[in-house]
């Protein structure tokens, strides 16, 4: 069937194809029906969780899932440390609650307000064999630590010729829109860090994901920057396995299967994509496949490629401004890999190229409505 796709490359074919795409949802589905069976099987396997539905799970919100992971990490690994601004008393988002009481001040402690110092300290501790989990109170505050992360953490192994590594280091930071955060409490700085070989960048989309990915990040032999969707801390509750489990880094998850269009997102944007997919499913019969990227560096090109190969359409969505966002990287890579199988130009539905606004947040954020509009546009192309 890829041959037939390649064949509709003449102008006439294109027109006919476009007409067919728009004609009806049935036609649209028919065009992409060959995909159904593969995606269904992928979906069930792609959680990376062998015990996702195990009886030992309980309803947990995002914040508690992170807290749970930290408890497990400190319990399992006597060299694990947890520190940052206000971490000792539970943190401003309450993600580190109970750690101080349980593991004591030697392992769980407050730091002064000193982001560059926090990360540098973490690198040093990691280089000496500890497993530090440093918290940056808001992702917006990570920039003073940018130098340490980019110039030191990322290059530690490389420039010591492999003598040293700070792989034990995990830097957690809550990111993203929250409804009223304004310029300095809402940003999504993940793309900056994806430009830095030597660190991994992880952005979980929900409680179950957060726990497994955080434990994997802490165990990972490379330094990880771990962005937590602060809007989800208390708004999302899922059944989360109570024990320890990890979700492999660098492996995307198919959050919803469909054959018409591939939607790629991460963190709290996945929920937006899900709402948009539900909208176009209901109103237009368009079936979207949603890929939760989970890890941005290294990112799972293969899963995205496989999906776009069958749907022929790609949309990437993130809250960060569109220009030089991580969406650009995905679109570039997939355009090259899937060039002849694309039915429409890949689109990015992202924040605009402005500072993150306060009063204009609803206008700025890539809402489900904007995503749905873009899906329809793409299917009509």
């Amino acid at each position, binding site marked *: 069937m890829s041959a037939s796709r390649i064949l509709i490359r003449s102008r006439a074919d294109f027109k006919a194809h476009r007409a067919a795409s728009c004609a009806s949802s049935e036609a649209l589905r028919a065009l992409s029906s060959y995909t159904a069976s593969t995606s269904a099987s992928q979906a069930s396997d792609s959680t990376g969780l062998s015990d996702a539905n195990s009886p030992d799970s309980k309803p947990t919100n995002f914040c508690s899932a992170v807290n749970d992971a930290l408890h497990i990490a400190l319990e399992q690994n006597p060299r694990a440390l947890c520190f940052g601004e206000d971490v000792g008393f539970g943190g*401003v988002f309450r993600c580190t609650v109970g750690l101080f009481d349980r593991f004591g001040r030697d392992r769980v402690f*407050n730091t002064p307000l000193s982001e560059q110092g926090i990360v540098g300290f973490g690198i040093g501790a990691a280089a000496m064999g500890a497993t530090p989990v440093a918290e940056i109170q808001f992702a917006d505050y990570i920039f003073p630590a940018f130098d340490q992360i980019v110039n030191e953490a990322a290059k530690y192994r490389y420039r010591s010729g492999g003598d040293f590594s700070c792989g034990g280091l995990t830097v957690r930071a809550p990111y993203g829109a929250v409804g009223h955060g304004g310029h300095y409490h809402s940003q999504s700085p993940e793309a900056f860090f994806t430009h830095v070989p030597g660190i991994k960048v992880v952005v979980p989309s929900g409680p179950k994901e957060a726990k497994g990915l955080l434990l994997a990040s802490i165990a990972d032999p490379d330094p990880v920057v771990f962005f937590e969707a602060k809007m989800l801390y208390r708004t999302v509750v899922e059944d989360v396995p109570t024990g320890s489990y990890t979700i492999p880094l660098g492996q995307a998850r198919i959050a919803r299967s469909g054959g018409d269009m591939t939607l790629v997102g991460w963190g709290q944007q996945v929920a937006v994509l899900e709402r948009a997919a539900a909208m176009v499913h209901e109103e237009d019969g368009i079936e979207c496949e949603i890929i939760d990227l989970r890890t941005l560096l290294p990112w799972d090109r293969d899963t995205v490629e496989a999906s776009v190969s069958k749907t022929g359409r790609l949309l990437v969505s993130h809250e960060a401004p*569109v220009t030089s966002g991580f969406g650009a990287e995905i679109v570039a890579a997939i355009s090259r890999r899937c060039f002849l199988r694309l039915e429409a130009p890949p689109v990015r539905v992202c924040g605009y190229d402005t*500072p993150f606004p306060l*009063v*204009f947040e609803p*206008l700025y954020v890539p809402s489900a*409505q904007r995503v749905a509009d*873009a899906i329809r546009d793409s299917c009509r192309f």
Partner: protein
Amino acid sequence: MPRRLRSVQKPQAIAAKPAPVEAPAKASKVATSKADLSPEVASDLYRDMFLGREFEEMCAQMYYRGKMFGFVHLYSGQEAVSTGVIRNLRADDYICSTYRDHVHALSKNVPPREIMAELFGKKTGICRGQGGSMHMFSAKHNLLGGYAFIGEGIPIGLGAAFQIRYRREVLGDETADQVCCSFFGDGTCNVGQFYECLNMASLYKLPCIFVVENNKWAIGMYHPRATGPSAGDEEPYIYKKGPAFGMPGVLVDGMDVRKVREVAAEAIARARRGDGPTLIEAETYRFRGHSLADPDELRKKEEKEHYQARDPIPQLKKYILEAGLLTEGQVKDIEKEVIEVVEEAVKFADESPKPEKGQLLENVFADPKGFGIAPDGRYRYELPGFSAGTAAVS
């Protein structure tokens, strides 16, 4: 910790270049003098502090009523610092604030209605409703901004101070004798930018006044737990870091506006003379949580009560009445006038229009053409396809 809250004027540690530091020694004695304020000054100080308090308490009400959004950090309790320093400045002097910036703006004569409108996210706000609580800017009032990130205003104030010196000494502008006053908290004194700036201010002998509003708590971190003790002390004293960088450091009771005022006057005069920067540590306390989202569970009741008893506003009122500077009736008139001003500010803010959508794309770059605004003059977000991610946005 209450024990260190005397109207402390510790002896100065030795500056690299000995600096005149006579003010502090006198400062602790002024309370006995009746004539250290004129009735006009007393009235101005009291009005400013009372306005600061009324304004902030109104903010809390409006915040809980959902009228304002964003994080809102109130200044209540610390008024003596803002008033004591800023009311001593000239209109053309500069200040840099923090995220707790409403009252600094008020002291710098920014109209309360414009601040309130900014907090309401309205077009008539000081920054067209675009910044909100932590981003008070006013070129007209030489208010170089509130800085939501700690310490980020310090180097910016430094640059402004450099510009003053440059205008005066290189460009020969005799009128360039302004000073720049940067405010920040105890928590900020652990970030690198603070130290970098102390060094540069001293190195370039800039007309800077660094005012540390030490309210003891960096959100949930008690100051002595976040900062190592100064040499020879059991506790940290931030003012002692001044001499290490070649400038005088002064500790002052930040709950007493008259003392703050005196110390500030000396530092301002010194900066204006061209004798360089001063580091002032004002010991103060915030009566509310870190922000209105903070349940404030970490500070002990006794500690809060201790400082409540030292509330700078009744303290000044008592002094004014006892010294016979103003009558009870005059004080009441001031209070009444301020309450009206604050109520008017709320009404103004409430009735003001919201900004138009297009404002989202304005002021990102100097020239909005080709960015926020399309060649035909329309905002790009109005163009077909913009929301679909297919229109050019830059």
